């Protein structure tokens, strides 16, 4: 029995050690240039958000009137000191974009961290215990999901007032449902497995089964959800800040920049264009990365699409 086992276990069909899997993933990533570029862009955005104080060419909050509304440097009238131009207060657009990215990413990550933790926990409980707990939680999820997020966020802001933390509260409040749904569906597929039965048979308490066995095995698809949600929240923050109900001056966020620059749209197109490009690219790349994570972690998905 022992000899046979060795031959079999070193045979060609055993590729699945963690190291091998990671190496294969990276190989596939290299071939898929689009996703590779997206991942690099996301990393760039994160990096510039973290390194903002260092890499930002100017102070985003200070500008002098003499430098007001300068176009990007390649346009006539532009100034090479201000690569993407300046805004109505003479502040450098590129610097504000870098610093704005900091705010937008912070909102995204914080919201998803909180709503993801809360939603995942509820989803785990709902899926594992079933019955009235499940029905209750899913009802709330259904009802809350059917209301458009923008409206809920606006009502929140109306009551609490605008500002970054109130916005985070609003977006977190309305962001947990998708995580709950995802976690629940994953738990449901695991709940009736022999592994869970075995855990019960040896006397595992529920908490250990749920958090020690089920959760580590379902975390992969959850990560996809987290990434996609960060993208969505960044978009939501942009919209809210544009409307004036999100980030408030003197902080800058991409959405706020567009909102402030809108008045000058006829004379200074760059105020509205570049922050928007930043938003669009960030959201798009996060989506592409999220899709890549999904196909990597779920081999079935790969063959279907």
């Amino acid at each position, binding site marked *: 029995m022992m000899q046979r086992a060795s031959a079999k276990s070193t045979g060609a069909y055993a590729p699945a050690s963690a190291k091998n899997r990671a190496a294969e993933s990276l190989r596939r990533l290299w071939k898929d240039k689009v996703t590779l570029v997206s991942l690099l862009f996301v990393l760039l955005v994160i990096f510039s958000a973290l390194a903002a104080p260092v890499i930002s060419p100017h102070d985003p909050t200070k500008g002098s009137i003499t430098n007001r509304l300068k176009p990007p440097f390649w346009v006539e009238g532009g100034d090479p000191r201000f690569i993407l131009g300046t805004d109505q207060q003479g502040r450098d657009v590129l610097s504000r974009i870098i610093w704005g990215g900091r705010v937008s990413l912070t909102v995204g990550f914080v919201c998803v961290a909180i709503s993801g933790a809360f939603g995942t926990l509820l989803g785990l409980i709902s899926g594992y215990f079933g019955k009235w707990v499940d029905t209750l939680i899913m009802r709330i999820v259904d009802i809350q999901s059917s209301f*458009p997020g923008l409206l809920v966020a606006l009502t929140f802001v*109306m009551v609490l007032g605008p500002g970054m933390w109130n916005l985070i509260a609003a977006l977190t409040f309305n962001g947990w449902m998708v995580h709950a749904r995802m976690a629940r569906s994953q738990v449901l597929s695991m709940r009736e497995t022999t592994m869970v039965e075995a855990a019960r048979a040896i006397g595992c308490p529920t908490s250990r089964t749920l958090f020690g066995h089920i959760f580590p095995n379902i975390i992969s698809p959850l990560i996809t959800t987290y990434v996609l949600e960060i993208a969505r929240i960044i978009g939501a923050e942009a919209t809210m800040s544009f*409307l004036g109900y999100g980030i408030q001056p003197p902080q800058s966020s991409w959405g706020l920049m567009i909102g402030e620059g809108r008045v000058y749209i006829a004379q200074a197109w760059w105020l509205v264009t570049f922050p928007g490009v930043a938003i669009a690219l960030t959201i798009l790349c996060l989506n592409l990365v999220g899709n890549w994570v999904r196909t990597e972690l779920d081999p079935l998905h790969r063959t279907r699409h």
Partner: protein
Amino acid sequence: MLRYVTLRLGYCVLVIIGVSLLVFVITHLVGNPVDIMLPLQATEEERAQLEHQLGLDRPLLVQLKEFMSGLVRLDFGLSWWQKEPALAIVLERMPATFQLVLWSFLVAGVIAIPLGIIAAYHPGSTLDRILTAAALTGICVPTFWVGLMLVTVFAVRLGWFYTSGYGTVRHMVLPVLALSIVPMGRIAQIMRFSMLDQLNKQYITTARAKGLDEKTVIFKHALKNAAPAVITTIGVDLGRMLAGISSPVEHVFAWPGFGSLILDTIQHQDFPLLQACVFVVAIIVTMINLLTDLSYGLFDPRIKY
């Protein structure tokens, strides 16, 4: 079936009432409308006077009772801002939003459905990849920014259309286009996915083997079965758009619809108007859910109510 619909309608009513109450209680407990409405240097006296005028100094339960009795008569009181019956104001604004949203979805559908079918028909081809990328981009790009970009190029630069306003077809082109981008992407995605799903099924192979021409295979068989998912998506998205998602675009183009009304309501902290808006939104949302659920039964003969 009738029993199911009645049950669901009852449930809808409960949700509508529940949400209205929830918003009422929260805004009255946490909100501070008086501070917003008065200039900064208002005295305590003036504040108290305004509070009394608006009826906000009465105990919450009294206000709640008054609200409830008004709710069943569909009377939300007079808007603080416009001094007209709140619900009437809302209803007056709905047609403009209907117009905008319906045209957007028409444009989106006309473009996205054929493209989705074509993409599904040639999966993995360059065309497919371009279409998939385009659809994803459409979904990821912030709608309000698309609107602003369209304005920059087509209204400011080229002068073909108006930057804002309401009245003629020329006023409508840019807002409709902007609002249609996200639905276009989503419809294309779901059409492609659905169609691909159907085309891979065995009954299609059988139909082809029988000698049916491709056109019949695609339209009479595959499309018919792929349709439910697409129709459901369109239905849900359209409903949510009516329920306030059109706000940013309406804001950009100064479109006098329900969306911009919501924004104004928030800005003016107009509680009666907010309640009327929430009420209408709740109706729209619960109705969409009900219709969607019923439509599943319509499309799938296996489902019985």
